[in-house]
């Protein structure tokens, strides 16, 4: 407000504000403008204020219309995650991380079991199997079909194959730096988040951190998509939740790297953990009773035709190994919080959803759509190979 030599009253303030408005917007009548400019010459404070307001007008006129839009509502802040991340700096978060149940370590893959000594009974079984091949081929088709449904529902948050109450993909060490490192990833398609439970990782110095990537084997590392970074506690553990902004089906692998501080956005060459998302296909198939293993994949498992998949699901209900009686949303890890920092995962915490009391879906289950997994283009396997792969 101009002070100047004059002792402005409120009414005069109002009057001068109208003059100021007319002056800066060029609406002051000629005779009044001369008088007003004389007042400016006499009052340096008024002159200064006019200069400032004119600058403000110019700034507002330059601003895009969006600057005048109402501000959007912001999401709720996860204050607890922020304070916990800060506590992790002082090792105070270790106990909280300890409380998170880690998935059971997967036993190392054993070598292929030796074939049992052949017997006459086995030979007879072979003859029976030859006779049954057409039937078995049909059964294999059904199994692959069901596996596709199982995989789809697993990646959509349905099928539990590890006892965690949620579908997971296991990560294994790929480096001598942390040979005992392991972990699991749980994908919640509904929330589009990936929850990682990791252990056996080295505590890194302050100028290094871990970073999680969706990756393509053989592809340029510059095309990898970062999910976020994190640190581990003193026990080498971390439990982090990352939002996933891309379709994970387009990235057949998950990688975790060590990254130096310094802002290079590209992944380093130091991979410590990795997992194939494609491995979920094999696990989904092995979850079908009676199927022990399978070589290769089939078109049915790819679920590439959503419309077809929808009808497939209908026919799959009631098939052994289908999703009958399974909760559509698997339970989440009991206490996912953003463990270490600089964990960038600020995703929402999935809440466990209890299964129906009677173990049955209360209504006709509505299965989520299948994710089109980019299986290797190996062509359609001969039925005999598939039958042999199933050990039938």
């Amino acid at each position, binding site marked *: *407000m101009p002070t100047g030599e004059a002792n402005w009253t409120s009414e005069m303030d*109002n009057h001068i*504000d*109208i003059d*100021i*408005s*007319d002056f800066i*917007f060029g*609406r002051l009548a000629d005779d009044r403008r001369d008088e007003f400019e004389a007042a400016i010459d006499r009052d340096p404070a008024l002159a200064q*204020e006019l200069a*400032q*307001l004119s*600058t*403000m*007008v110019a*700034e*507002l*006129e330059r*601003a*895009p*219309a*969006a*600057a*005048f*839009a*109402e*501000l*959007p*509502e*912001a*999401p709720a*802040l*996860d*204050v607890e*995650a*922020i*304070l916990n*991340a*800060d506590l992790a*700096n002082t090792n105070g978060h270790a106990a909280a991380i300890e409380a998170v149940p880690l998935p059971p370590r997967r036993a190392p893959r054993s070598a292929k079991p030796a074939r049992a000594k052949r017997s006459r009974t086995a030979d007879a079984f072979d003859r029976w199997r030859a006779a049954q091949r057409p039937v078995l081929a049909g059964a294999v088709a059904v199994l692959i079909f069901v596996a596709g449904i199982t995989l789809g529902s697993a990646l959509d948050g349905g099928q539990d194959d590890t006892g965690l109450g949620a579908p997971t993909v296991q990560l294994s060490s790929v480096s001598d730096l942390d040979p005992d490192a392991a972990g699991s990833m749980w994908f919640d398609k509904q929330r*589009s988040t990936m929850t990682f439970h990791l252990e056996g990782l080295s505590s890194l110095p302050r100028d290094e951190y871990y970073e999680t990537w969706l990756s393509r084997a053989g592809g340029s590392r510059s*095309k990898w*998509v*970062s999910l*976020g970074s994190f640190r581990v506690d003193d026990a080498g553990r971390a439990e982090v939740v990352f*939002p996933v*902004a*891309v*379709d994970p089906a387009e990235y057949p692998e998950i990688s975790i790297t060590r990254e130096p501080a310094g*802002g290079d*956005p590209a992944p380093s060459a130091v991979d410590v953990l990795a997992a194939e998302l494609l491995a979920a296909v094999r696990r989904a198939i092995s979850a079908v009773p009676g199927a022990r293993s399978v070589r290769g994949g089939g078109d049915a498992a790819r679920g590439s035709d959503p419309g077809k998949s929808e009808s497939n699901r209908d026919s799959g209900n009631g098939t052994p190994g289908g999703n009958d009686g399974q909760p559509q949303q698997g339970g989440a890890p009991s206490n996912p919080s953003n463990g270490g*920092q600089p964990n*960038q*995962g*600020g*995703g929402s915490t999935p809440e466990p959803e209890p299964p129906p009391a009677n173990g049955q879906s209360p209504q006709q289950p509505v299965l989520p759509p299948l994710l089109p997994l980019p299986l290797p283009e190996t062509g359609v396997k001969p039925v005999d190979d598939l039958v042999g792969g199933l050990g039938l």
Partner: protein
Amino acid sequence: MPASDSPASKDMDFAARLSARDERVIEEIYATYSRATFGYLMQMLGNRATAEDVQQQVYLEVWKRGANYDPQRSGILTWIMQITRSRAIDHLRKRIPEPVDPHDPATESRAGHESPLEGLHDQWYIAHFLAQLPTEEAQLLRLRFADDKSQSEIAKLTGVPLGTVKMRMVSGMRRLRELIDADRRGELD
């Protein structure tokens, strides 16, 4: 404006409490500035889920680096917007182009306004301070500068006497200038 509510004193209060690790201050800071930072991130990143994630990172950084904030060097909004801009750029550098939902308002907003980063920064900076004005003053400034209405048209549209429109507009710009000057004082030193 009472001295205790002035932008400068508010910044000083936030700075002192960040330095003292007062856990409640991060919620107060978020309540004050989150809409501007979120608007900026939505427009820059074009995806609500991603913006929410980066928003969380920004306020984690505000909390962690709070002890280093010096209200003598800049207003707290300038400081927070710098962090927001840096985290958004980090995210853009790391990701490959993603498919966008054409029905997402953020996409529409981004497509309709291809401002450079600095322009976006200034835009949300102004939007924040405009939201601090009394509603009637902010409304008049929006009609004048966003909708390009003359003062006479505004008077007709709102039913407010022309003289009152002029006074409120000057009052609003004066208040806006004080808010922005207080936040920019560090840059001008």
